[in-house]
């Protein structure tokens, strides 16, 4: 389906783009939400990602899967947005509990996941970003360093710190 939808969307077919949106929006939104820890901002950035994808489909050469390309667009969109925005304190309460619902069904322990999501959202911004990209999304340390434009050692420090803070906060609950 994805190949046809991509070809259709590139040809300017809104229905094909709708299909791409439908197939990928939850993945894009999850990444935006975890990276920003801000529901409203995650919604805006998700829209930004799809608008950007629509406008730049012509640059998608098909050398990677569309989902991989879109994932990269998402990470870059969130990081670019962060660079543009003034330094703001973390919004610890910017993700209401309900925002973490709607995930895959069949979780063994939803309460445990909710505690973990809350703890991730409470992390300092850079530590959270590095942790989400490496620990949740599976990027290597080298890839995270490249995306965040920081040294490898810095990324590792962020991830180590994030893990320590998570363990501390999960123990407190």
């Amino acid at each position: 389906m994805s190949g046809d939808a991509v070809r259709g969307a590139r040809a300017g077919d809104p229905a094909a783009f709708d299909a791409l949106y439908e197939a990928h929006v939850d993945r894009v939104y999850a990444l935006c939400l975890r990276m920003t820890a801000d529901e409203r901002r995650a919604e805006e950035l998700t829209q930004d990602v799809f608008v950007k994808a629509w406008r730049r489909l012509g640059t998608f050469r098909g050398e990677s899967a569309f989902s991989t390309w879109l994932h990269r667009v998402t990470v870059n969109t969130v990081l670019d947005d962060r660079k543009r925005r003034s330094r703001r304190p973390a919004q610890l309460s910017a993700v209401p509990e309900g925002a973490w619902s709607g995930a895959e069904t069949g979780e063994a322990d939803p309460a445990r996941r909710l505690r973990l999501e809350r703890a991730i959202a409470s992390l300092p911004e850079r530590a959270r970003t590095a942790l989400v990209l490496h620990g949740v999304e599976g990027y290597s340390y080298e890839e995270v360093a490249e995306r965040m434009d920081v040294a490898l050692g810095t990324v590792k420090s962020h991830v180590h710190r994030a893990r320590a803070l998570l363990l501390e906060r999960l123990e407190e609950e």
Partner: protein
Amino acid sequence: MSEAYETHPDEARLNDLVDGLLTAEDARSLEAHFEGCEACRRRVDALRALTADLAGLPKALSPRRDLRQGVRERVRGGSAGGRLPAVLRAAAAVLLAVGAGAGVWFGLLAPEPPAPGPDAPAVAADDVIVAPYAAAADELAAELEARREALAPYAGRALEASLRSVDRAIRELERARAREGADEELTRRLSAAHRTRLELLRTAAGMLPASGMLPADGLLPADGAGGET
């Protein structure tokens, strides 16, 4: 380092073990340390459980409100792959046909047009003369899109908001023209709207940083549209 740790390994070392970044020999020496150190063993067990939990988090979460309409509104008037929408080709052509005119904003803003419907007709490309300006405007729009991030955030958002307003006016004027016929006043306003759109793009191009800056007259050198990001 083959001997077992006599002092507690630091946190970075434990994380390296969890991440599989240690040599087999280093890993063995750490494991040997854990046999006699309950605290370190518990710590590394906790780190391993945490990394497993993180990796197991769902990769998809549904937004609590439908974002599709917002995306549709923002892409309306645009087209995939950086190609220029017909309405903008028409704008360029109208500019050629009508010539320059100042103060079009004000002529455009009154009266406020009602909200457009989803089936608002597009400007037919053959309605106007699509001249060499179309190619120049095409490049202008594509370059602006490719370098959208080079615009200050407020400028980018202001540009998008302004374009939305102009697009809305164009659609409504087109609809009125289809309904009532192409009288002189409607045609004048439509021309003004198209010209305003082109002026907006030119103004935005003039706000780009000097490197690779586009000439504000919209007659552009080809500059590539960027990579896969």
